[in-house]
């Protein structure tokens, strides 16, 4: 009864249909269901409140505290120093302190897989990418996706669009739809959205246009069966669940934890909703690519390593 875990979500909130929601559903909620231990949560309404929220949780005796999203980086650094006895986890960023676990994902590896699948599926040899806010993290998705597509076929053309450069870019499905339609009009027939709420518009456009779309972060295959080719899942929920479990049994470990395909941090989703779209050949091909990445035979370039997509 003394175990009081907490999650501080990013400002998009825990129902963003992708990233935060994955932590909420597959992490916090699942943990509560399994253990009947309540998970406290917090959503900041502005930047200043991140630090404040973390401090409040720490002072309230919550432990461990998971901070979702790189935006928490500097706030967590300050608070973790102030509360050395509390254990913190930060997702998507690195905070180098003895009581902080930094959880990173190799989104580029997952994106590589779905990029490869997109190239296999595309009849026109043209695939598209629609990003949300133009930040390096999203370019990392795009870069991995491009590499995957080109790995299948050097001639594949990859169209990339970013929805915008402000926070609104995460929640502008109308623009997402327009970007997607524009790509379709240029011949694209598979599109991958890494755009938060904007993705909804991308998938809808794919549905309306009779094309294929790829979901992100959570498994979004169920949104439009027959349209959603697959989803690049980032298993943040699972990771959170693991951490809570470990912490509950007193096995919290600080340090950097990078999860790629090998560590089951990212993956592609194949379930009853997209089964019909993925032929056995494709499945085999993707699985072999996946194996090669896991063994290190294929090294996927990380955009954020050098801030460029040269590979």
């Amino acid at each position, binding site marked *: 009864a003394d175990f009081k875990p907490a999650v501080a979500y990013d400002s998009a909130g825990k129902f963003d249909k992708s990233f935060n929601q994955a932590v909420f559903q597959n992490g916090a909620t699942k943990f509560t269901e399994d253990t009947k231990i309540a998970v406290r949560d917090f959503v900041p309404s502005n930047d200043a409140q991140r630090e404040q929220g973390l401090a409040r949780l720490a002072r309230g005796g919550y432990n461990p505290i998971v901070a979702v999203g790189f935006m928490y980086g500097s706030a967590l650094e300050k608070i973790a120093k102030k509360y050395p006895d509390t254990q913190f986890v930060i997702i998507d960023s690195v905070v180098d302190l003895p009581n902080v676990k930094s959880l990173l994902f190799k989104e580029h590896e997952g994106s590589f897989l779905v990029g490869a699948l997109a190239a296999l599926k595309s009849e026109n040899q043209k695939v598209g990418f629609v990003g949300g806010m133009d930040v390096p993290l999203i370019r990392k998705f795009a870069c991995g996706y491009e590499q995957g597509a080109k790995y299948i076929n050097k001639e594949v053309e990859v169209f990339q669009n970013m929805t915008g450069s402000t926070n609104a870019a995460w929640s502008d499905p109308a*623009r997402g739809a327009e970007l997607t339609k524009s790509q379709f009009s240029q011949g694209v027939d598979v599109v991958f959205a890494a755009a938060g709420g904007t993705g909804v518009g991308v998938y809808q456009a794919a549905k309306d246009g009779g094309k294929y779309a790829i979901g992100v972060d959570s498994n979004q295959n169920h949104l439009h069966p027959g349209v959603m080719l697959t989803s690049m899942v980032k298993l943040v929920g699972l990771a959170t669940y693991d951490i809570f479990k470990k912490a509950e049994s007193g096995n919290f470990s600080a340090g950097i934890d990078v999860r790629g395909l090998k560590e089951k941090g990212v993956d592609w989703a194949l379930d009853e909703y997209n089964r019909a779209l993925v032929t056995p050949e494709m499945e085999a091909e993707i699985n072999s690519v996946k194996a090669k990445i896991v063994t290190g035979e294929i090294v996927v370039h990380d955009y954020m390593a050098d801030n460029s997509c040269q590979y």
Partner: protein
Amino acid sequence: MYENLILILDATLRVSTPLILAALAGLFSERSGIVNIALEGKILFAAFAAAAAASVTGSVWLGLLSAIAVACSLSMLHGFASITHKGDQIVSGVAINMLAVGLTVTLGRYWFGLGGQTPALLDSQRFLPITLPGADALADVPVLGLLYSELISGHNIIVYMALLSVPICWWVIFKTRFGLRLRAAGENPHAVDTAGISVAWIRYRALLVAGLLTGIAGAYLSTAHSAGFVPNMSAGKGFIALAALIFGKWRPVPVLFGCLLFGFLDAVAIRLQGTELPIIGEIPVQLIEVLPYILTVLLLAGFIGRAVGPKAVGIPYVKSR
């Protein structure tokens, strides 16, 4: 090339539709003397109402009706503050915008538990594209076929409604009694009052028309262009519409062209994005994104000279000497 142009124009129509409706809404209210920076909030709330009602009742038409009802209610609030109580019209506009952002999400979360989103709408709960007669048959006719099947046919009903509303608005404003009184109220409300006509009632009616139009614009966003409501989905369209209104000097047809221009810019920007241009290289996405704003400022500053609005716009009407 030609095909590309048609596709860009096609996108222009889709993107411009909410702008046209909202700008015409602004036209009605500003012509009657009420500055309307609340367009943004009205569209947003209407979009929420449309999606929420469509998803609960399963009928897109009920969604549209609720959107109109909600936008009209906000208009009445606007009127209550700025007509009945003679408050500052810009301030009540700002308040309505804030209210819309907050209340849509609060209610949405409480009702649907999806963090402010509404559930995704099924096809039966949306306005779907309409294929005009003969579009498929004519599609292969050179030049005209594509024009007809891609650009003219294949939009949802609201797109056609928006285009149709331009001549209707023109006719109402310039050819009817209501229009005459409306324009008079925006120019010289004292004259209207002494002619035995209630300025307040005219302005309220103008705001109701604005509510109707923004309601349709909102419904377009969430039930036609997209399939559901997402927080903040109006994304500045109300402000762009306002710019287009000024741009078109408060006249329906030029306003239409203003909206189409901004829509066109948007459509082109989407296609220009990420392309390497000779010499300049890749244009930063941010630059393309602000192009409509920069252009509006430039046009406001220079090419179109002074945009002189209705004389009495923004001034609460008070009987006096």
